[in-house]
C-alpha cells in the first residue's frame, strides 16, 4: 500500500471518529455513531497491518495480542454493572496512558520501525513529541489508577494532603522539562526512563490530594490528557488518525470537565488544587438549632402520589448507590397506570459523572423522552403535585439559589420546593457531596422518607397495591 493511500485511509478513520461523536447528539443516531467508530478503528488497524506487512511470527503475535486484550475487554464490557461506569472509565483511561508509554518506549528502542531515525540518531523533533507523549501518558496512567481506586472504594476518598506538595509538584515539573531537554541532547535510555518515573510519580501526587467526590472531574480531565498524549504520539508517527483522535478526545475531556465545574459552580483550579470533600468529610445536619422535620412512611407517600395529577421524579447519587432505578421504574409504571403524569428531572451534575442518571434510567427502560434536563423542566415544578426526590440532595438545595453565603451559591438547582409536596428519600438527615445542610428538609411542604432508596421505593409500590 502506498504511503499516500495509507494516509488517506487514516484520514478516513479520523473522519469516522468525528462521525461517531456526532452521532451522540441524539439518542436515535447514537448507535449508528458507535458503528462508525468501530469501522474507523477497523480501517486504522487494517491499514497499519497492510503497511507493516508483518512476518508470520509477527502476525501471530498481533492476533494473539488482539485476542487476549479483546476478550478481556469484551468480557468486562458485558459483565460490568452500569453503576460502576465511573470506575470503568477511569480504569480504561489508565490503560490508554500505559499503552502510550509502551508505544513511546518501543519507538525509543526500534526507531526504524517508526521511521523516525535509527538508534542513536532519532530526529530531535520526534524526541520532543515522544517525550511529551510519554510524560502525559504516564501521568494519565497513575492518575487514572488513583482515580479508579478512589471511585471503586478500594482507597479512601479522603484527600491526602502532603506538606509542601505544591513545591514537590513544581519541582517534578521542572525536572521533567530538564529531562526532556537532556533526552533530546543525549538520547539516553536512562533519561527516557527517568522521564517515565518522574511522570508516574507526578500522576500520583497530582491526584491523591483530590477528594473522592471530585473524581469525576479528574476522570474527565485525565480523559483529556490521554487525548493529548495520543496526539503527541500522532505527531511522532505522522499518523493523521491519531492526531485527529487526540484532538477530539482532548477537547471532549476538557469540555466535560468544564460542564461539571460550571454545574457545581466551582472553578477548575479549585478542583485540581484538591482538599475538597471526600465522602466521609460530609458533616451531618445536626449542628445546633433544633428544627422540626416531618417524616413519613411508605403508605403516606403512596397515598400522596396516587392522588396527584403530576409527579416529577428527581434522582440523585443515592439512587445509584441503592441501585433503585428498576424499583423506580415500577413505581412510575404504577402511577402512569393510574393516570398520573410522570416526568423525570435530571440536574447536570446529579450523580457522580455527567449523564450518570440518564444511563441508569435508560438501563431501567425509562424512555428518554420522559427524561428532561434542568432548563426544560424547572418551570414545571410549580404545576407539580409531588416532587419525588430519590437520593438527590445538593442539586435541590435552595441555599444555592437564595443564600449568598453558601459555598454552593450560584449553582443552578432543581426547584423542587415549588412543588406542592416534596418527598425526600434518603437514609438520614445527613448532607450530600458538598457537605452542607439542606434547608429543604425542614420546610412545611417536605416529607422525609428515611431509608434506603431501593427498599423505600419498593415499599411504596407495595403500598400502592392496597
Amino acid at each position, binding site marked *: 500500500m502506498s504511503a499516500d493511500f495509507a494516509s488517506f485511509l*487514516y484520514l478516513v478513520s479520523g473522519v469516522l471518529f468525528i462521525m461517531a461523536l456526532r452521532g451522540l447528539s441524539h*439518542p436515535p443516531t447514537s448507535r449508528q455513531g458507535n458503528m462508525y467508530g468501530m469501522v474507523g*478503528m477497523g480501517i486504522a488497524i487494517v491499514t497499519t497491518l497492510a503497511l507493516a506487512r508483518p512476518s508470520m511470527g509477527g502476525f501471530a503475535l498481533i492476533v494473539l495480542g488482539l485476542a*487476549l486484550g479483546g476478550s478481556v475487554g469484551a468480557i468486562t464490557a458485558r459483565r460490568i454493572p452500569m453503576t460502576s461506569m465511573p470506575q470503568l*472509565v477511569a480504569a*480504561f483511561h489508565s490503560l490508554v496512558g500505559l499503552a502510550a508509554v509502551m508505544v513511546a518506549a518501543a519507538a525509543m528502542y526500534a526507531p526504524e520501525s517508526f521511521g523516525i531515525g535509527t538508534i542513536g540518531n532519532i530526529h530531535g523533533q520526534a524526541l520532543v513529541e515522544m517525550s511529551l507523549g510519554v510524560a502525559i501518558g504516564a501521568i494519565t496512567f497513575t492518575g487514572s489508577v488513583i482515580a479508579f481506586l478512589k471511585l471503586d472504594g478500594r482507597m479512601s476518598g479522603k484527600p491526602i494532603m502532603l506538606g509542601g506538595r505544591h513545591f514537590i509538584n513544581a519541582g517534578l515539573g521542572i525536572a521533567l522539562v530538564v529531562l526532556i531537554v537532556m533526552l533530546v541532547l543525549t538520547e539516553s535510555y536512562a533519561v527516557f526512563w527517568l522521564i517515565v518515573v518522574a511522570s508516574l510519580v507526578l500522576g500520583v501526587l497530582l491526584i491523591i490530594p483530590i477528594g473522592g467526590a471530585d473524581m469525576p472531574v479528574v476522570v474527565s480531565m485525565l480523559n483529556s490528557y490521554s487525548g493529548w498524549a495520543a496526539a503527541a504520539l500522532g505527531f511522532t508517527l505522522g499518523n493523521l488518525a491519531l492526531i485527529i483522535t487526540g484532538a477530539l478526545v482532548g477537547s471532549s475531556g476538557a469540555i466535560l470537565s468544564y460542564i461539571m465545574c460550571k454545574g457545581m459552580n466551582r472553578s477548575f483550579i479549585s478542583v485540581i488544587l484538591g482538599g475538597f470533600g471526600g465522602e466521609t468529610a460530609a458533616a451531618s445536619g445536626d449542628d445546633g438549632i433544633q428544627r422540626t422535620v416531618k417524616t413519613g412512611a411508605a403508605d403516606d407517600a403512596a397515598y400522596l402520589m396516587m392522588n396527584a395529577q403530576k409527579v416529577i421524579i428527581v434522582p440523585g447519587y443515592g439512587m445509584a448507590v441503592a441501585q433503585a432505578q428498576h424499583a423506580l421504574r415500577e413505581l412510575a409504571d404504577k402511577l402512569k397506570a393510574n393516570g398520573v403524569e410522570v416526568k423525570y428531572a435530571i440536574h447536570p451534575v446529579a450523580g457522580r459523572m455527567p449523564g450518570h442518571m*440518564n444511563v441508569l434510567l435508560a438501563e431501567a427502560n425509562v*424512555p428518554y423522552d420522559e427524561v428532561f434536563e434542568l432548563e426544560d423542566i424547572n418551570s414545571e415544578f410549580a404545576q407539580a403535585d409531588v416532587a419525588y426526590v430519590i437520593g438527590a440532595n445538593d442539586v435541590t438545595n435552595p441555599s444555592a439559589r437564595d443564600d449568598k453565603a453558601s459555598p454552593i451559591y450560584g449553582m443552578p438547582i432543581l426547584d423542587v420546593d415549588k412543588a406542592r409536596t416534596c418527598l425526600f428519600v434518603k437514609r438520614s438527615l445527613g448532607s450530600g457531596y458538598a457537605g452542607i445542610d439542606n434547608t429543604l428538609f425542614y420546610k412545611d411542604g417536605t416529607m422525609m422518607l428515611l431509608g434506603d432508596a431501593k427498599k423505600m421505593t419498593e415499599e411504596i409500590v407495595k403500598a400502592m397495591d392496597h
Partner: protein
Amino acid sequence: MEKTALEHALDQLDQASAAARLALDQVQDAADAAGAAAHAASGGAIDPFVFRFAIFVLAIFVGYYVVWSVTPALHTPLMAVTNAISSVIVVGALLAVGISAASGLATGFGFVALVLASVNIFGGFLVTQRMLAMYKKKEK
C-alpha cells in the same frame, strides 16, 4: 606523469562539458531564484509538521463543536466512546510488533501496548453499545 594526446583530448572535452554544465547551472540558478519564493509560497517544500499542526488545530475546533453538540443525556456514553477511539494508539503498537523484529525489547513493549489498547477498543465500543442499546423512546 605525461598525458597522451587522447587523454588531453578527453580532458579538454571534460573541461568543455564542465563549462557547459556551469553555464547551465547558472541559468538554472537564475530561474530557481525567480521561482524560489514562489515555490516556498506554494508549499512545495513545507515541513510536514506544519500540515500536521494545521490538522491538529482544525481537529480541536471540530472536537469543540462536535462535543458541545452531544446531548447531556449521552455524556456517559461519550466518555466511554472517546476512551475507545483514543485507543487508536494501537497503530503504534502494531508497527512495533509487526516490524521491529530486530529488537526484542521493542517488540515486547509493543505487545504490551497492543494488549492494553485491545482491551480498550473492545471494552470501550462494546460497553458503549450496551449503554446506547438501553436508550429507547416511549413505545406507543
